[in-house]
Structure formats: C-alpha cells, structure tokens
C-alpha cells in the first residue's frame, strides 16, 4: 500500500528517502576515494565527474520517462529498444540525405540533420501512440504491450538498418557510422550538453508532475484508474501523454547515444537500459503500483546507481562491469526494502518467519561470502587473503542474521 503522507499530488514526499540517497552517495565517494590506491576521485576528479555525469544524464533521461509511466500506473519495458530504434531512424535519415557514396555521413547538411532529429523524435511519438492504442483500445496489459514492442522494435530497427544500407550502398550492414560534423560537435561537448538537457528535462517533468493539472491527473490515474475516469478525467489522454513521454525521452537518449558512439548499431545499442531506468525510478521511490513517485527521487536514484557503479570500477581495476549487474540488483532490493520499512505498519513484521526464513539465512550468507571473496580477489589491498575474507563475511552474515532471527523469535513469544 502507498505511503501515507506521500502527497503525490503536491509532488513532494517526506524528503527522508531523498536525504538517505544523498548521504549514501557521499559515503560512497569518500570511502572509494580513500580505498582506491590511485585516489582517483581526489587526484583526477574532473574526468571521473565527467564519466559519472555523462552516464547519469543518459540513464536519467530514460528514467524520467520510466518514472512518469510508472507513476501513471503503467510500465514501459520497451525503452532500450526504443533507444536503438530512434538512433537507427536518425542514422538512416541522415544516410538518405548524405552524398550517395558517403558511408560516413560527413556530407549531411543542416536540413538533413534537422529532418533526422525530428524524424527520430517523431518515431518516439509514434511508438508512444502505438503503446497507448494497444493499451486503451485493444486493452492489452501495459506489460504485454511494451513487452511486444521491446522485442519487436529492436528487430525492426535491425531489419531497417540492413534494408536501407543494402538499398543505399549495395551491401548490407548491421551498423551505420555517423561522422556528421554536427554530431561530432555534440560528442565533443557531450558532458555539458547532455547534463544540461537532463536537468532541463528534469525541471520540466517536475513542473508537469507537481504543478500542473496534467500532473495531478497522472497521479490520480496511477492511484485509482476507475475513480479517475468517473471523476471526468480523460484517462486515455493522460495515458497517451505518459507513454509518449516515455518513448520521447528514450528517443532523445537514442540520439545522444548515437552521437556519443558515432555509430548506430541496433543490434546491441542500449540493450537492457529499460531495466536500469526502471531500477533508477524504483530506487528513487516510485512504486510500481502507481500513484507514487517524485522527480527528485528519480534523478537521485539514477545518480546514485551510476555513482556506485563508477566507484566499483575504480576499486576493481579490470573488468569491473562484471559486477555492475550485482550492484544494481542489490541496490534495487535494498532501496525498495528500506522504503517498505520506512512505511508505517511494518513494525511487527518478522524478517525470517518459519522454516523458509531459516532456509533464507544460509542462502544469503553464502551469496554474501562468495561475493566478498570474488570482489576481494580484484582489490590489491586484500591480495592473498580473499578466502579468509570471504569466510569471515559469510560467517559474520550468518551470525548476524541468525541473531536477528533469534531476537524475532524472542519478541514473537
């Protein structure tokens, strides 16, 4: 059930959650800067900052879209594919405006660039409309509708890519290089441009959600759809806005990503980004039941995710990305758990009830121990003592949880 005191309407929840995120972030910074033998965060802060900002901007832009859809009581699984689709659309339109034999698209003029960008944003609008149509007219559950586009759009983009390259240059290609000067310039200044875009978008979204009638209707729709309809709210239009906003942000991110990697590669561009975006929104306090969530929370959620990921890549020198998934997973679980416990009415709940609770304890301890061991193996500080560390962590965890369980047992009886 949704938190009391979260006046979704006014867009402001108790800032407890946001504060916690900020605090955690600062902690991560300090600890990492201190553990990291290079002290990168203190030594070459500027570059680290740029990396974090760039990634946060991309993730955040998509997360804002995800948040709006989630607040409106829906879910959009298609963001990642939408990114790929819009990037491909953009590149293909550029290709059509480039000189016939120019496969690097350097010769595209302002008109072409305008059309390409407009086109890919339009594609976002169209997909959003398609979603709304599937959900409101055909009455597919949002999960199903966007699942279909999640798998569909990417393969559609790949097919377009093969087809157009074949038609245009005679040989099929799974990616299109984009060296158009304008996009090169975009890449040159990507940190500034992306961050500003992100912040402006966030401000805009905040205004819409907490200071306009539309925003109020979004919260109402997410909170109780039938009541919203019977209160004379055109729920279909509100949904349309939500899903179009979701797809538009994704296609915007698509353009940036294309510029940033100067290639449109539908095959695996932004694969799985939708999950990170949803994760960011959830970490930021959006509830998948709908009707609850804030822009500030979402922004902080995205930032926090990226900060922790970056921190780990500072601590674990090589192939840190292996750990990215675990980090996201654990953060999501923890964040939602905390918001859950934050709510009232959870006081008298047991963490490890019954036999399954007992079974859960060693499971978690084992995972924790393995994780610690594997992580330590990559941190010079622990060289040679990994097994020890892993064992210690596992044991400690086991002890801790067992105590919790015991205390619960005491309290219950």
């Amino acid at each position: 059930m949704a938190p009391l005191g979260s006046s979704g309407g006014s867009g402001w929840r108790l800032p407890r959650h946001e504060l916690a995120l900020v605090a955690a972030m600062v902690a991560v910074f300090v600890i990492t800067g201190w553990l990291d033998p290079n002290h990168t965060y203190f030594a070459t802060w500027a570059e680290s900052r740029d990396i974090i900002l760039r990634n946060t901007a991309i993730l955040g832009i998509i997360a804002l879209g995800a948040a709006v859809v989630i607040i409106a009581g829906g879910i959009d699984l298609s963001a990642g594919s939408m990114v790929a689709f819009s990037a491909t659309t953009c590149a293909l339109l550029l290709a059509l405006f480039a000189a016939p034999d120019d496969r690097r698209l350097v010769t595209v003029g302002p008109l072409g660039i305008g059309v390409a960008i407009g086109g890919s944003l339009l594609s976002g609008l169209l997909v959003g409309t398609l979603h709304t149509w599937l959900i409101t007219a055909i009455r597919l559950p949002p999960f199903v509708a966007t699942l279909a586009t999640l798998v569909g759009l990417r393969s559609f983009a790949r097919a377009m890519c093969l087809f157009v390259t074949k038609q245009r240059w005679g040989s099929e290609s799974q990616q299109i290089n984009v060296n158009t000067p304008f996009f090169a310039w975009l890449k040159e200044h990507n940190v500034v441009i992306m961050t500003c875009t992100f912040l402006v978008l966030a401000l805009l979204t905040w205004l819409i959600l907490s200071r306009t009638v539309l925003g109020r209707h979004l919260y109402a729709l997410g909170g109780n759809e039938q009541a919203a309809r019977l209160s004379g709210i055109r729920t279909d239009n509100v949904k349309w806005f939500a899903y179009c906003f979701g797809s538009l942000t994704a296609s915007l991110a698509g353009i940036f990503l294309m510029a940033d990697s100067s290639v449109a590669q539908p095959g695996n561009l932004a694969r799985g980004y939708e999950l990170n975006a949803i994760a960011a929104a959830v970490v930021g306090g959006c509830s998948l039941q709908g009707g609850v969530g804030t822009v500030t929370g979402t922004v902080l959620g995205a930032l926090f995710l990226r900060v922790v990921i970056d921190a780990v890549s500072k601590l674990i020198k090589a192939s840190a990305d292996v750990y990215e998934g675990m980090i996201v997973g654990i953060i999501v679980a923890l964040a939602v758990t905390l918001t859950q416990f934050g709510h009232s009415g959870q006081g008298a709940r047991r963490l490890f009830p019954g036999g399954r609770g007992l079974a859960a304890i060693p499971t978690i301890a084992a995972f924790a121990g393995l994780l610690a061991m594997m992580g330590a193996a990559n941190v010079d500080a622990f060289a040679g003592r990994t097994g020890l560390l892993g064992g210690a962590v596992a044991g400690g965890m086991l002890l801790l949880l067992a105590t919790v369980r015991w205390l619960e047992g005491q309290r219950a009886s």
Partner: protein
Amino acid sequence: LVAGCSGNAGTATPMAGGPAAAAKAPGVAKRFVFITNGDDPFWDACLSGLEEGAKRFGCAAAGITVSRDVNNASAEGQIERLRQYATQPDVAGIALSVIQADNQAIVDEMKKLQAKGVKVITVDGDVNRELYREARSYYIGTDNVVGGRTLGTAAKALLDAKGLTSGGYVQFAGFTDNDNARSRMNGVKEAIGDRYVERDRMADEMDLQRARDNVRNATQNHKDLAALIGIWSYDAPAIADVVTESGSRDKYVIATFDAAPLAIGQMQKGNIDVMVVQNPFEMGVRTVRLLKAMVDDDEAVINEMFPRAGMPDGDVHTTGLRVVVPDRSSPVKDGLFDSQVVEFLTLPDFTAWLAKYHLTGS
C-alpha cells in the same frame, strides 16, 4: 606515413607533465590493460600470452601489472572502457582489439589517451588505416585479408579435391562488419574463386545458440551448399556440432579460423578439414613486449619489432599464421601457401606446440 609513430611521439612529450608523468615516475605502480572486442575463447590464449610476456620481460620487477578487460561486444562498451581508464593515472599502456574499424568515437578516445601520454596500440583488430592510422602507434596481429585468403585457398583445394566444380558456401561470424571479420570474409571470397558462390554471411552477435541455429538454417536453406566457413573461433565447434548431429558431415567442406579447444577436439574427430590459426598467444607476449619498450622508450626493441618503420604499413607487426590440417593425407598441401607468412602444421605437431606453453587453444 611516418606520421604514425613520430606524430604520436610528438604529442606525447608536451603532455609529460600530466598524470602520465606520475605514472612514469619510478616506483609508482603502472598497468597495461588489454581490451578485447568481445567475449571469445580466442582471448583466453591471448591472456596466457600476456601473462607469459609479463614474466619474460620482467614487468613485476618494474612494478607493472598486466590485466585484461573483456568488452561486451558493443562500441559503447569499448568507448566507456577507454574513458574509464583515462581517469586512472596508473594506466600506462593500452592495447585493444578495435570492434569497429571505422568508429570515430573509439578513435577519439584512443587519441585522448595518447594525448595523456598513455601508449596505445591495436592488436588483432585494427582501426581503418586509411583514416585513423595515427590513433594508435602500432598494430600487432595477423593481416586478416591474408588470413582470409589463406583459408580461402585451403577451402578451394578441399572443394576441388572433392571433384566439385561449383557450389555454394556460407561464412559465419559474430558481426559480419566487424573489421577483422569483414577482411577475412573478403579474403576468403577472393581466394576461393567465383566458381563457388557465397550464399550468405550470417551474424550471431556472439550468441552460441544463435551460432548453431545459423548453421542449421544455412544447411537447410541452400541446397547446393558445399562449404561452411567459420570466421570467429566459436563458430568452428558450432559448425562441427551441427553437421555431426544432422549426419551430413561428408556433404561439406569445413574450414575455420582459430583453434578453440572445442575445435581441436572436433578436428581430432575428423569434423573439421582445415583450421587457419592465428597466434593469440604470441600476440599477447608481443603486446607486453612492445608496450614495455614504448614506456621505457627502448628504441632497440621497437626497431627490432618494426624494421620497416616509416615504410608503407611499417607500423604493422604481423604475428604468424598457421594452417593446421588433420594429417599429411589432407588435400591441403604445404606448397599452396607462401611460407614467409604461413606455417603449415599437422594437428599432432600443433597440439604438441600448445602443450609446450600449457595452452588449451589458439
């Protein structure tokens, strides 16, 4: 063309005051990082090479550690990694197998690294030399076009030996327009001649299940199919598996690149006719050697590795190619190839060599 090395040297010196200086200062731990293009058994052999090299050239003594970073088969992946290492002052040298030869963004990041005084070379997959040669100082690896031609020649010999005069063939790779895949395929196509028709180039995006399904569909869709060409190392076992499972082994000539452990097993079972094997192990060894020499400004070693510096492709160091056949009875004969470039081996000799370095594949 000299611009390649000298230009880069020129950019290196003025930046000497930057973080690179810190890295160069004696006693400070330094790192060489090897960034792969994707996730492929090929790179395990390379890693052994890196470790061997680290031993041979006394990296430990010089406080240098060598690590490998496996990319996720996407361009953003490599870009993100290059950026990440740019922030870390202890990274003194980077070698990478470029995933997209024409990718401006990757090239830019490589240049940024060079500007910081970090040594950047490409291994196995080079940038587009016409456009971006100066993005890296040197390239170590096989000439993929030559490699492709070699495989094509072998395949043609096998097809002719079957008494075929025509037929189709399909080439399998992770990404059909990744640079090394493209040049190899073109090489194959060029050498195999136009009596045999290329039916398709199938990409599996490094998904093993899809690799197998691709082969299955190819064998079903093209009736005149006579040869199956595996371009990336995991394609060889995929092809062998499928033809054995469908019992159609003897319908096809099977010619593949690289010697993944599974591929070696399959050739022993007689399910692969010929393998053109690069030498990732040597690539690894020489990567370390070169990077170390560059960090220590050891001209002697560099000149030894690049005798033709300044001449066309003087900044390219090709590690040898091997043609491996099951045994002498194979229609593929030593004489077909230019012995300067290609070493001709039978499987037993080859496995013996692997054993020498405790390698499982190459």
